[in-house]
Every structure is written in structure tokens, then in C-alpha cells.
């Protein structure tokens, strides 16, 4: 087997490539060009970034969990979130947020189809699926904007509910299970509500920042794809790397959805 053949990746399998490396003179091995994980540098680094990012999100969610665990009472998510656009004052728990979840899952699917099209050098396919991914990301951000502004209109924001002269039990009782609301003290209710909304806005905001930067990256690779940059380069690896990031954002939402709306 000639060296050039193997370097261009035409080895029948990873094992063949390994055997080729092992059989080569030492000098050739020291020239590099050997990937022990059979995966490119850029993708390895994206994975390692995602590991570190998962610890950032993990720290936020675990901090939220422990705060919730060491408080005697906690607002009921089904009562706190339930507003849906175009339904007025009606309260439908979980409906709007499950629409958001489906939007993000579908945009993850269109992203994996863009990556798939890239594997087969199908430029038109990559453009089509990336466009749909961007639309999905923007739709998710629009939903989140609506949800945040609706909560803000109701008076929820970072650092609210800390002044006992401004807050009464009556103004907080709609957030709690009626059995809890009947017995709770103002101090307990204020502490729990403040913690609840601080964590909600911090974590969904941090996730929203990730969605926004993911949309920006998707727009960048869409422009590059349309310009033919990746076609000339001979591979669509950049779409794969951004795809990993985008799937990670979807993955984090799966956990945020569970932690905030279900548990």
C-alpha cells in the first residue's frame, strides 16, 4: 500500500490504516497524519468543548436542584407556566413549552439531514436543510421571547419578590399548589419564588444564548456552502462540527425541559 493512498483515506478500514501506520518506518510515523481516534482534530476539539459546556449547564441545573431541595416549598411549574399565545387568559400547562420542544427537536433533525447531505457532497441538500434548521432556531427564539415577555408582564424577573412591603401572600399564592398556598408563610413564599425565577431566567437565558450563537454559526456555514467553499475543500466537515454544537443545544433543552417543566 502506498503512503499517499492511505493518507487520502482510501484505506479499506480503520484497522487497515492502523496496520499501515504500524508497518511504516518510524520517520514516517513522526511526520504526523495519523489520527488515533480516526476522527479529525476539529471534531475532537468540538466534542471536548461540548464536554466542558455540559459541565457548565450541569452546574447550573444541579445548583437549581440543590436550591430547590433545601427549600421547604417550591412553586408548581404547571401553575407558573401555562400561558399560550392567542388563548388570552386561559391556562394550558405544558402546551406551549412542548411546542417549543418539538420545534427544537425538528430543527435538530433537519441539522442531521444537512450533515448527512454533506457526507454525500450534496450541496443543494445542505443548503435546504440548513435553511430549515435556521428557521427552526429562530422560531424557538421567538417562542422564548414571547414566554419571557409574558412572564415579565406578570411581574417575574431576576431579583423580584425580595421586598416584603411590595409582595403579599395573595400575589404569590397562584404559583403554588393550593394546599401549600394555604399554609405557607410570606417569607418562605418570597424566598422560593425569587429562587425559582432567578434560576429559570438564568438557565433558559444561557440556553437561549447558545441557540442564538448556533443560529449565527448556521448562517455562516450556509453562506460558505452557498459560495461553494466546502465543495472546493472536498468535504463538509464544518457542517458536522456546527451540527454537533446544534445537537448539543437540543440535548441541553431536553434536560432543561425536564428540570423546569416536568419535575
Amino acid at each position, binding site marked *: 500500500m502506498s503512503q499517499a493512498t492511505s493518507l487520502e483515506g482510501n484505506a479499506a478500514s480503520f484497522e487497515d490504516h492502523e496496520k499501515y501506520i504500524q508497518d511504516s518506518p518510524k520517520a514516517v510515523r513522526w511526520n504526523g497524519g495519523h489520527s488515533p481516534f480516526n476522527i479529525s*482534530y476539529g471534531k475532537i476539539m468540538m466534542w471536548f468543548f461540548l464536554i466542558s459546556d455540559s459541565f457548565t449547564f*450541569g452546574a447550573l441545573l444541579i445548583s437549581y436542584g440543590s436550591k430547590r431541595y433545601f427549600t421547604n416549598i417550591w412553586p408548581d411549574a404547571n401553575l407558573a407556566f401555562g400561558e399560550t399565545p392567542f388563548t388570552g387568559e386561559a391556562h394550558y400547562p405544558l402546551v406551549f413549552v412542548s411546542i417549543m420542544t418539538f420545534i427544537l427537536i425538528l430543527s435538530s433533525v433537519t441539522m442531521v439531514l444537512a450533515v448527512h447531505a454533506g457526507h454525500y457532497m450534496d450541496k443543494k441538500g445542505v443548503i435546504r436543510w440548513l435553511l430549515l434548521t435556521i428557521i427552526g432556531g429562530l422560531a424557538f427564539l421567538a417562542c422564548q421571547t414571547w414566554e419571557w415577555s409574558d412572564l415579565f408582564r406578570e411581574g417575574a424577573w431576576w431579583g423580584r419578590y425580595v421586598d416584603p412591603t411590595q409582595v403579599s401572600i395573595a400575589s404569590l399564592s397562584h404559583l403554588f399548589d393550593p394546599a401549600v398556598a394555604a399554609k405557607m408563610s410570606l417569607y418562605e413564599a418570597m424566598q422560593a419564588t425569587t429562587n425559582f425565577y432567578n434560576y429559570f431566567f438564568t438557565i433558559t437565558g444561557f440556553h437561549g444564548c447558545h441557540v442564538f450563537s448556533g443560529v449565527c454559526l448556521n448562517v455562516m456555514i450556509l453562506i460558505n456552502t452557498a459560495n461553494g467553499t466546502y465543495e472546493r475543500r472536498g468535504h463538509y466537515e464544518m457542517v458536522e462540527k456546527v451540527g454537533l454544537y446544534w445537537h448539543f443545544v437540543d440535548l441541553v433543552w431536553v434536560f432543561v425541559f425536564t428540570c423546569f417543566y416536568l419535575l
Partner: protein
Amino acid sequence: MVPDSETNKHVYLYEHDQSALYSGVLNPHKHSTIDSGESKKQIRKIVKITIYLAIVTTLEVLLGLWHHHEHVLASGVVNAMFLCMTVFKAYLIVDVFMHLGNEIRNFVMAVLIPLTLFSWFIIAFLADGHHFIHMNNTRADTQKIEVFQANE
């Protein structure tokens, strides 16, 4: 040792577009088309996983609504079910959408082993929260005081 022409090519690749070194890794289906049987098989798998994700999410929402209105099962049981479904969804996304299932075992381990730190992370912080609420509700373990427990 005088490098031969092939070694030169090697150096050339390394100094310029490094990704060309891995083009076989990056682009295994370069010589196939999107309409090929192999491609269609992969698309069918993606669609299958999408349906699984949709079903599990719908189940989560229905379970959440049912638990909110009826409250038949204990909250602990429902929460354990939610966590199992969440981890299952995470597994599907990482395995198929992020293609971790297609990587070699060593790389999968390089990604997953650091994540086992989460087990310490979760246990330590929940234990801390448990200790805190105990101290808070007993005046630092000096007396039993009547506190309101929402989960009673």
C-alpha cells in the same frame, strides 16, 4: 534521510489544509450519492429516531398533565419516569444525531468517562441540600420545630 516525494506530499498536506489529511475520515461517502441505497438507509434511521423522540416527548407531556390533574402515582415514581425518559432521549440524540455511535470505542470512552463526574456532582450537592434543610428546620439540630413540608 532524504524525504521521498510521498513524504513531501505528507509535509505539504500538514502545512496547509490539515483537514485533507483526514479526508477519508471526514468524507466516507464521497464517491456515493445522496440517492444511493446506503444513504436512504441512513435517512430511514434518522426518521425512525425522530419518531422515537416525538413519542417519548409526547409521553412525557401526557404523563405531566395526567399527574397534574389526577395525582394517582407518587411524585417520586413520576419523577423517576421523567428522568428515565430524559436520559433515553439524550442517548438517542448523542448516539444517532451526533454520530457518537459511529466513532471508535476509545473515543466514545474519552467523551463518556469524564461525564461520570456528574454522579459525584449530583450526589454531593443533593446531600449538601439535605443537610442544609435539616439544619435550617431544626435550628442547627438543637430542637424540633414545626415546619411546613410541602411534600407531606
